[in-house]
């Protein structure tokens, strides 16, 4: 009895998940995903420039 409940519910969940995944894919959600990785950066703290380097060279 338990296994039937498990099987049906897991199939249902998997189906719902695949449905949402399909919809996201269709709405071009995944086309430029890596661009979102640039959100923390801006002009003054751009990519390639470390910040917060408090421990100065002389204190090594």
């Amino acid at each position, binding site marked *: 009895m*338990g296994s039937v*409940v498990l099987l049906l519910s897991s199939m249902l*969940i998997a189906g719902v998940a695949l449905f*949402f995944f399909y919809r*996201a894919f269709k709405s071009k959600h995944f086309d430029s995903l890596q661009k979102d990785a640039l959100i923390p950066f801006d002009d003054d703290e751009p990519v390639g420039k470390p910040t917060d380097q408090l421990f100065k060279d002389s204190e090594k």
Partner: protein
Amino acid sequence: MIKNSILILGIIGLFLFAMIGLTILPKLFIEPNVEKANVYVWGRAAEGHKVYVANGCIYCHSQQVRPKGYGADFERGWGRASVATDYKGLSPHQLGTMRTGPDLSNIGIRQPGRDWHLLHLYNPRTVIKESIMPPYPYLFEIVDADKTLKEGLKLPPEYQIPGKKVIPTDEANALVDYLLSLNQKDPIKPQQN
């Protein structure tokens, strides 16, 4: 803002899914069987359960015996595998997750003596020298020996206080009743005197 709603609904959906699986489903599957069982904890043992909870005994003692062949619970004489009906009528459950001290599911059988328990609670090292269990002297009253007719604890010489008797309070007696009621054999845990 479709993205906002997908995120929030997705989080709530996955949460509810597992919540139903781990809290509602067990309730539906387990409780009917437990309801049918004829098990009660009453009288002073129930009061003792409250003292057990109030002093955090659960942080060192478990009350769940694992099945034979899984760990050495059975070989150590701690009992048979625990079942749901063993915990009927008790809230909060005290299943426990630590065995700094031994499992207590059958302590009423392993240590059936009232005096042993009272001594052990007053200071565990009076009966087990190397024990690391905390002492519970505040569950006892220390009164002048000639001011009371009650029996004091029979303490070993190094723990005796000259001229005084150590008398258990109601809380101590209730806790001992609870501990003595802990066994997996009797469906009904009766009131102790």
